C-alpha cells in the first residue's frame, strides 16, 4: 500500500513539474493530462484513506522522509484531491486555449501535490519541504498573468508574508532537535519536548500556521492574492494553502495543549479573525474580495476548533467549507470570465443571466451563511460545542462570528439576484459563444453544490460517530439540539435582516468603514513598520559598504601608495643623494689625484722631495 501513497504524491508533483517544464510545447495535451492525473489521484486518495499506509525514504541523518496516512490525513487527502479534480475540470473551460495552459495546469498539479505531501507528512522535515513548495507554487499561480506588475506584486506579497511566517517552522524544527526528545522530528512526538524548547516549538508552529491560514495579523496577503486566476483562488482557499495552517493546528492539537498557553491563544486568534474578517467581508464591494475575507473568517472557526480541542468539528468545518468555497469561487470565476466583472454592483442580475452558476453560487454562499440544512450550519455547531465546553465567552464569540457570516453571504446573494439593470453594462448580453459555459465548466458546479448539501449528514449521528472513530478524537463533546436550533435560527434571522437591508451602506462612520474595506489596514502598517525600514536599512548598509568599508580598503591602498611616493621623494632621494655624494666625492678626489700627474720630471722630483720631507718630519716627531 505504501506504493499507492508514493504514487499519490509523486504523480501530481512529477507530472506537474514536467508540464511546467514542457511549457508551450505541451499546451495542447496539458488539460487532458491534468484531468487524468487528478482523477487517478482521487482514486489513490480514497485507497490510502482506507488502508492508512506509511512510507519512508532515507534522507538527512536520523531524519527520514516519512509519509503517513491516518484518519485525519485520510480525510484531508480525499478532500484535497476531490476539490483539485473539480477545479482542474473547471479550468479546462476557464483557462482558454490561448493561455499558457501547460504552465497553468502544471503549477496547479504541483500546488495540490505539495498539499498532499503536507497533509501526509509524518515529520517536520517533510512538512516544511512541502509547506514551502506550496508557497512557491502559489507565488507562480497568483502571478500567472505576469505581464501585469500589480499581479506580480501581489504574488510577491503573498510569498514573502507566508515565508515570514514559515520561519516559525524552521525555528520549531531546530527547537525540536535541540529539545532532544524527538530526534526524528516526528509530528506526534513534538509535544514531548521540555520547556523552554516546548514553548519555542509551539510558538513557531502557531506563527507558521496563522501565516499560512491568513489569520490575524497576516490576513492581508490573501486580499492581494485575489489577483490570481479564479480557479487558483478556488483551490487556494478551499483545500490547499490557507487550510494547511488550520490542518497543522488540528494535527498538532496535543502540542497546543501540552504547551499550556497554545490552546487559548490559538482559539482566541481564530475567534477574533472569524469576527473581524467577517466584518471586513461585509464591507467589501468586490465579490472576490468578499469571498477572500470570508475564507479567513471561516478558517478562523477551524483554528478556534484546534484551540478548543474540537478536532472533529474543525475537520467537518474544513470539509464543508472546502466544498462551499471552491464552488463559490468557481461560480464567481465563471461570471468573471463571462461578464468581465467582479464588483458586486456590476454583477447585479448575474444569477438571473446564468441560472446554473446563479443557483449553485447561491447554494455555496448560503452554506457559508450557516443556513440550515446546509452543511456548514451543522459543522459549525459541532465545533462550537467544544468551544462551549472551554468557555461561554468563546462560544459567544463563535456564534456572533456565525451571524456576521450570514450577513456577508446574503449581501452577495442579494446583489446577484437583483433584476438586470435597464442600462445594461454586462457584456454577456449579446448572444455570443462567450456567454456559454461548457460541460467542463458546469459539471464541477453541480457536483460541488450537491456536496454542500449532502455533507450535512456528517454532522449528525451515526455518520458523525463514524467520522470521530476515523479521526480517533474521542467524540466529545456532543452538541445539544438547542445549539443546532439556536445557530440555525440566528443564521436565518441575520440572513433575513441582511436581505431586507439590501445594498444600503452599513451605518458606521466613514473612516471605520474604510478601515474595514482596507482589510483593517494591516498591510499598510506592515509596509510602514517592516518593509520600508528594511529597505531603508538595506540602502543605508549599501551606502556604508560603498562609502565606508570599501572606501576604507581603497584608502588603505591609497595610503600605501602615498607612503611609497613619500618614500620615493624623501628617503629615496636622500639615500640616493648620499650614494651620489659618495660618488661625486670620489670623483673629486680622483680629479685631485690627477693634478700631480703632469708628466714633467722636475715636478715629480719636487713632489718626491716634499713628500720625503713631510715623511722625515713625521718620523722625527713621532719618535
Amino acid at each position, binding site marked *: 500500500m505504501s506504493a499507492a501513497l508514493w504514487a499519490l504524491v509523486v504523480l501530481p508533483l512529477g507530472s506537474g513539474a514536467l508540464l511546467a517544464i514542457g*511549457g508551450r510545447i505541451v499546451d495542447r495535451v496539458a488539460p487532458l493530462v491534468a484531468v487524468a492525473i487528478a482523477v487517478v489521484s482521487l482514486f489513490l486518495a480514497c485507497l490510502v484513506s482506507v488502508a492508512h499506509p506509511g512510507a519512508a525514504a*532515507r534522507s*538527512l*541523518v536520523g531524519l527520514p522522509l516519512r509519509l503517513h496516512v491516518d484518519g485525519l490525513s485520510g480525510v484531508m487527502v480525499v478532500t484535497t484531491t476531490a476539490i483539485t479534480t473539480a477545479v482542474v475540470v473547471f479550468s479546462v473551460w476557464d483557462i482558454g486555449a490561448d493561455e499558457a495552459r501547460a504552465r497553468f495546469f502544471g503549477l496547479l498539479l504541483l500546488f495540490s501535490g505539495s498539499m498532499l505531501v503536507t497533509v501526509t507528512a509524518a515529520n517536520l522535515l517533510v512538512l516544511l519541504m512541502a509547506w514551502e513548495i506550496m508557497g512557491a507554487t502559489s507565488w507562480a499561480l497568483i502571478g500567472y498573468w505576469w505581464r501585469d*506588475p500589480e499581479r506580480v506584486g501581489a504574488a510577491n506579497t503573498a*510569498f514573502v508574508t507566508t515565508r515570514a511566517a514559515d520561519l516559525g517552522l524552521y525555528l520549531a524544527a*531546530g527547537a525540536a532537535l535541540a529539545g532532544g526528545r524527538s530526534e526524528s522530528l516526528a509530528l506526534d512526538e513534538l509535544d514531548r519536548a521540555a520547556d523552554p524548547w516546548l514553548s519555542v516549538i509551539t510558538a513557531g508552529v502557531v506563527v507558521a500556521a496563522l501565516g499560512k491560514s491568513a489569520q490575524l495579523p497576516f490576513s492581508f496577503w490573501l486580499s492581494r492574492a485575489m489577483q490570481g486566476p479564479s480557479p487558483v483562488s478556488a483551490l487556494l482557499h478551499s483545500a490547499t494553502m490557507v487550510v494547511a495552517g488550520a490542518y497543522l493546528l488540528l494535527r498538532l492539537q496535543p502540542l497546543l495543549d501540552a504547551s499550556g498557553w497554545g490552546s487559548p491563544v490559538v482559539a482566541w486568534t481564530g475567534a477574533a479573525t472569524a469576527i473581524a474578517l467577517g466584518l471586513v467581508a461585509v464591507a467589501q464591494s468586490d465579490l472576490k474580495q468578499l469571498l477572500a475575507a470570508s475564507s479567513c473568517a471561516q478558517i478562523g472557526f477551524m483554528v478556534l476548533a484546534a484551540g478548543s480541542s474540537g478536532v472533529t468539528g474543525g475537520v467537518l468545518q474544513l470539509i464543508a467549507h472546502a466544498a462551499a468555497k471552491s464552488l463559490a469561487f468557481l461560480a464567481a470565476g465563471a461570471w468573471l470570465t463571462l461578464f468581465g466583472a467582479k464588483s458586486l454592483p456590476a454583477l447585479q442580475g448575474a444569477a438571473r443571466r446564468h441560472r446554473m452558476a446563479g443557483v449553485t453560487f447561491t447554494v455555496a454562499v448560503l452554506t457559508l451563511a450557516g443556513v440550515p440544512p446546509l452543511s456548514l450550519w451543522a459543522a459549525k455547531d459541532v465545533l462550537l460545542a467544544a468551544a462551549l465546553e472551554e468557555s461561554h465567552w468563546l462560544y459567544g464569540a463563535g456564534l456572533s462570528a456565525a451571524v456576521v457570516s450570514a450577513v456577508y453571504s446574503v449581501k452577495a446573494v442579494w446583489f446577484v439576484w437583483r433584476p438586470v439593470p435597464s442600462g445594461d453594462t454586462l457584456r454577456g448580453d449579446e448572444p455570443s459563444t462567450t456567454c456559454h459555459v461548457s460541460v467542463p465548466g458546469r459539471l464541477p458546479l453541480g457536483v460541488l453544490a450537491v456536496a454542500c448539501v449532502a455533507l450535512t449528514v456528517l454532522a449528525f449521528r451515526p455518520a458523525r460517530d463514524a467520522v470521530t472513530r476515523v479521526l480517533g478524537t474521542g467524540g466529545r463533546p456532543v452538541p445539544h439540539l438547542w445549539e443546532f436550533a439556536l445557530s440555525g435560527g440566528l443564521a436565518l434571522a441575520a440572513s433575513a435582516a441582511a436581505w431586507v437591508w439590501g445594498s444600503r451602506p452599513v451605518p458606521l462612520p466613514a473612516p471605520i468603514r474604510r478601515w474595514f474595506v482596507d482589510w483593517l489596514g494591516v498591510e499598510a502598517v506592515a509596509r510602514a513598520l517592516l518593509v520600508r525600514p*528594511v529597505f531603508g536599512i538595506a540602502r543605508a548598509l549599501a551606502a556604508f559598504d560603498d562609502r565606508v568599508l570599501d572606501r576604507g580598503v581603497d584608502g588603505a591602498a591609497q595610503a600605501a601608495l602615498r607612503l611609497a611616493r613619500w618614500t620615493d621623494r624623501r628617503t629615496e632621494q636622500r639615500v640616493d643623494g648620499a650614494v651620489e655624494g659618495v660618488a661625486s666625492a670620489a670623483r673629486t678626489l680622483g680629479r685631485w689625484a690627477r693634478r700631480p700627474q703632469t708628466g714633467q720630471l722636475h715636478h715629480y722630483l719636487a713632489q718626491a722631495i716634499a713628500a720625503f720631507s713631510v715623511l722625515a718630519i713625521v718620523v722625527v716627531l713621532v719618535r
Partner: protein
Amino acid sequence: MLTALVLLPTGVAALLLCVPRSAPRRLFLVGWAATCTVELALTVAVWAGYRSGGGTQYETRARWIPSAGVSYHVGVDGLSLPLVALACVLFLACSVYALRETRRVREFAALFLFLQTTCLGLFVAFDLILFFVFFDLSIVAMYFVIAGWGHPGAARAALKFFLYTFIGSLALLLGFIGLYLAANPHTFDIVELTQQNPLAGRSLYGGLVLLAVGVGLAVKTPTVPFHTWLPPAHTEAPAAGSAILAGVLLKMGTYGFLRIAMPILPDSWRHYALVFVVVGVVSVLYGALVALAQNDFKRMVAYTSVNHMGYIILAVGAAAAAGDGQTEARQLAVTGAVVQMVSHGLLTGALFLLAGVLYERGQTYDMSAYSGVAGRAPVFAGLTGVAAFASLGLPGFSGFIAEFQILTGSLGPRPVATALALLGILLSAGLFLRALQRIFLGPLRLPEAPGADRPFPDIRGHEGASIVPLLVLAVVLGLAPRFLLDVVEPASRGVLELLSR
C-alpha cells in the same frame, strides 16, 4: 591518481600554448572542454572507488623539501571529495559556456586549465605549504582572467582582488609558520599537525595563530568586513570567471576552516567560537540587506554569496559550542556547512552564467534597464527563476538541504544567533523575487544602450548545456541527497571528534 587529476589540466594547458595562435579557435575550445570532461570522468572514478567512512583515501606522499618539513602530500576524504567533484563540474560547465568565446581563446583556455589545477590541488592538499602554494597560484590565475577578459573597469577590480586576497594569503602564511614552529618535530604536514595538536594549552600563541589563519581564510571566504573585493571583482569579471570565482575559489576559505583551523587548533577554536558565530550572523544579515539594495544584478548575486557563506561560518562556529546531548545537532550543522559549499557552488555558478547571458544580450547588468524579458526569452526567464528559487532555499533544491541542516543544527547550541540568521532566509526571498520581477516580469522593456542586441534571443545551445546540468544537480541533491551525505557525514563526525579533544 590524484596527482594525475591535479596535473592533467596544466599539462594540457602547456600543450595548447605550444600550438600556434593561428590554429582554429575550435581546437582550443574543444580541447579545453574535452580535458574538463576527462577530469570529471576521473573524479567520478575516484568517487566510485571511495569507500565512505574509510577516512583519507588515494593518499600519496613524496619528499619535496624535507629540510623544512614540507612534503607533497595529497589525498581525499569526505570534506574534500565533494569539493573536488564540484570544481570539476563547474569547470566543465564553464568550458561549455565558453564554446563561443572569441577573444584570445588559446590563452583563455590555458588559464582556466591552470586554474583548475590550482583548485583541485588545493582541495586534495594535505600539506600546509602545498595548500598555500595552490592558494596563491589560484589568485594569480584569477587575476589574469579578470584583467584580461573582463569588462572595461576590470583592471582596477582585478588589482584590488589580487592585492586584497594576496594580503590575506600572507596572513595565512604567517599562521602556517606559527604552526610549524609550534610543532615538534617541525612540520607542515596537516595530518601530523592534527595528530600533534601542537598548540594545546598555549592559549595566547594559539589565539594569535588562529587570528592569522582566520583572517587569511575570512578574506578569501569572504566574510564581513573583508568582503569588499568581491563585488567589483564579480561585476567586472567575465561570466565564466565569476562562476569559478564564486563557485570554487570562495570555497577555499570555508574549506580551510574545516580542514585546517578546526582540527589543528581545537582549543583556540572552541575558545573563540563565538567570534565566528557573530561574524557568520553578521555576514548573513549584512550580505542579504546590502544585496537587497543593489540595482546591478551581478553585484546583487555577489552579495548573496556573502550571505550564503555566512551560514557556513555560523555553522562551523556553532559546532564548537560546548554542551552535551547536542552531538546530533552539531553534526547536522557541520554536514550542512559542507553541503552548503557544494550547493552554493552549483547555484551561484548557474546564476553568474545566467548573468553573463543577460549581459551578452543587453550589455548591462542594471536591473532597471530591463522589464518583461520573460516574453522574449521564456527559457532564460524560467532558468533564472529556478536558480533564484533554488538560491533562496526552496525545498526540492540543494540549498534547502544545506540551510535546513545548518539552521536546525545551530539553533540548539546558539539559539539567539541562529534565530537572527533565520531572517536571512526571508531577506533572500525578498531580494530574489524583486530581481525576478524587475528583470523578467511586467511589460516588455529592453535597454537602449548602443550595441545592445535588440531582438534578445533566448538561451542558446551551449548556454543551456552549461547551465541546465548545474540546476539538475541542485535538484538531485535537493531530492536525493544521500549519495553526498554518505560521504560527508563520516567526515563531519571526524571533524567534531577532533574538535572535542
